[in-house]
């Protein structure tokens, strides 16, 4: 997993609720069997005026000038400030891969959909939950201030605004540790191989029907 320690980066506001994974990366791009290359189709239906399909030449697309990320001032943004329930909808990790591939390292929102939240950590994209009024204020300041950069420190669990205002956030210790050190979950879990095997053999005796196959 990609490590995350601290970034000081340009933010972009997309302050609306229920940004779903279909909007983040539309289904036609899920046909890919790869993990990379989703960034050009991030928010495809909002970002372009023409309809997107896999394998298109990105230079042939018609960007929607109204869409926030198409504005020059947000080029290179690494932090997205959003509304409630970000990432709701499907389990597609492609949504995280698309955000990551585009260049985002963190999303700040009042709440995240559960599966998206889990997925984000796996690619080193840090989901930060801050109170709704704080998110609204950050989004507003971001819109009103060109070059609005947030300082995100995972070690300290803080987001610092350009004015020096510090907002603390919560994150599971285990996840923070994995992210700070870029640890591979599967490798860690396999260190507990014996425990898994012991559980399995006890269970196999107690409830053998769980192990039936056809």
């Amino acid at each position, binding site marked *: 997993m990609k490590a995350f320690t601290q970034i000081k980066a340009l933010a972009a506001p997309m302050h*609306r609720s229920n940004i779903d994974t279909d909007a983040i990366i539309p*289904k036609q791009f899920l*046909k890919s*069997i790869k993990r990379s290359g989703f960034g050009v189709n991030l928010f495809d239906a909002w970002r372009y005026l023409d309809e997107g399909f896999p394998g298109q030449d990105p230079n042939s697309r018609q960007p929607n000038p109204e869409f926030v990320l198409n504005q020059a001032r947000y080029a290179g943004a690494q932090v997205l400030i959003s509304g409630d329930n970000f990432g709701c909808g499907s389990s597609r990790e492609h949504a995280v891969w698309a955000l990551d591939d585009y260049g985002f390292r963190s999303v700040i929102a009042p709440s995240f959909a559960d599966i998206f939240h889990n997925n984000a950590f796996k690619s080193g994209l840090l989901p930060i939950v801050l109170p709704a009024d704080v998110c609204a204020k950050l989004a507003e300041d971001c819109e009103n201030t060109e070059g609005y950069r947030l300082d995100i420190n995972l070690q300290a669990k803080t987001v610092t605004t350009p004015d020096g205002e510090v907002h603390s956030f919560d994150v599971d210790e285990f996840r923070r540790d994995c992210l700070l050190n870029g640890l591979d979950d599967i490798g860690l879990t396999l260190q507990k191989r014996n425990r898994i095997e012991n559980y399995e053999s006890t269970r196999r005796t107690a*409830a053998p029907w769980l192990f039936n*196959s*056809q």
Partner: protein
Amino acid sequence: MAGKTLYDKVWDAHLVDEQEDGTVLLYIDRHLVHEVTSPQAFEGLTLAGRKPWRTDSMLAVADHNVPTTSRDEGIEDPVSRLQVETLDTNCEAFGVTEFSMTDHRQGIVHVIGPEQGATLPGMTVVCGDSHTSTHGAFGALAFGIGTSEVEHVMATQTLLQKKSKSMLVSVDGQVGPGVTAKDIVLAIIGEIGTAGGTGYTIEFGGHAIRALSMEGRMTVCNMSIEAGARAGMVAVDETTIDYIKGRPFAPTAEQWEAAAAAWRTLVSDDDAQFDKVVRIDAAGIEPQVSWGTSPEMVTSVGGVVPNPETVDDATRADGMRRALEYMDLKPDTPMTDIGLDRVFIGSCTNSRIEDLRAAAAVIQNRQVADSIKQALVVPGSGLVKRQAEEEGLDKIFTAAGFEWREPGCSMCLAMNADRLEPGERCASTSNRNFEGRQGAGGRTHLVSPAMAAAAAIAGHFVDVRSFV
């Protein structure tokens, strides 16, 4: 000490390890796999030189990309074809049981799991698909995971998890005639909101839930993810046990009694404490129709499109305005004035035999309205299709002007050739009305199978109760 909830019981039975911060290693009994979210996981295993821990826990099927017209020609779209072929190759290479596209048991993963008895009470069931919540109808703990987690389960048979809070949604009393499981769950989401279940595992209880068939309970649990919940569950009873008996993966004769006895304990104790309780009066639920681009944007068929100007919360009003613009709807329009272009009966929410029966009962001896460009019925699995044909339901549909298709996800998400054109409006029995879900620019209204059937006949939404 307070008693345990159903969720507590299943959770506790699967703990392999617990860390100080409460992160646990949870054992996974059943891993369902489909073509969209698995290729990168299989690739990850291969790259790391790892093997699946227990291939016999896995069952794979291609459903999202498959054509619903004849399968003889294969898949036309080369990108879709490659994804389905990749699943075939991976399953073969790793020794995973797969129902291939031409197998008569093929279907939507959440339909075939229960149908095969691969989903059993008390199991932990995962799949790289958010609607895995469906399987909670069996008193299983079932939830969707992302591709990295798919790989984690393949490699370790476990997941790193934190326990969620528990919510009881009790639907008390009895629903009126013509009101179905779909209406119940849409009404619940309308009540608690699409983020109302975030951080919770929901147990659905109350008389109206107990009275549902397994098909109905699956419809309800299917959409618990639409309320943001980690999972939805229904306690085990004789309805559950009767459904499982005799299915291919179900316990064999000598195990059956022990299994059934264990399953009967899978109910919340009387003195169990939930973190939150929501009570809904079943008698107050009417047939539902969604009007917006989020499943919480839903109202009764007798209602009108709401007016954002009457809403105080600015963010909410803004979301409503955006939705109405996308849906091309004016505030205060009666729902029954909304005309339709297409009708879709299918998806893992509503494509089981009971759903098809309900739709057919409305359609019998009637004709799809001329204004409807296409009315599709896509059974959830090959076995559902076969049973429907044995009952003559296909004849009822085709005589009325519906197309009778091969099983798959189809127009639920339009990854195959079935989709809405920009601006088209559809009555759909699926679970998501997000922008572009059924095709770029398409407009989705979520309804029950009976309501979709009635809308197909009328050409616009109607109260199915005035049809029956």
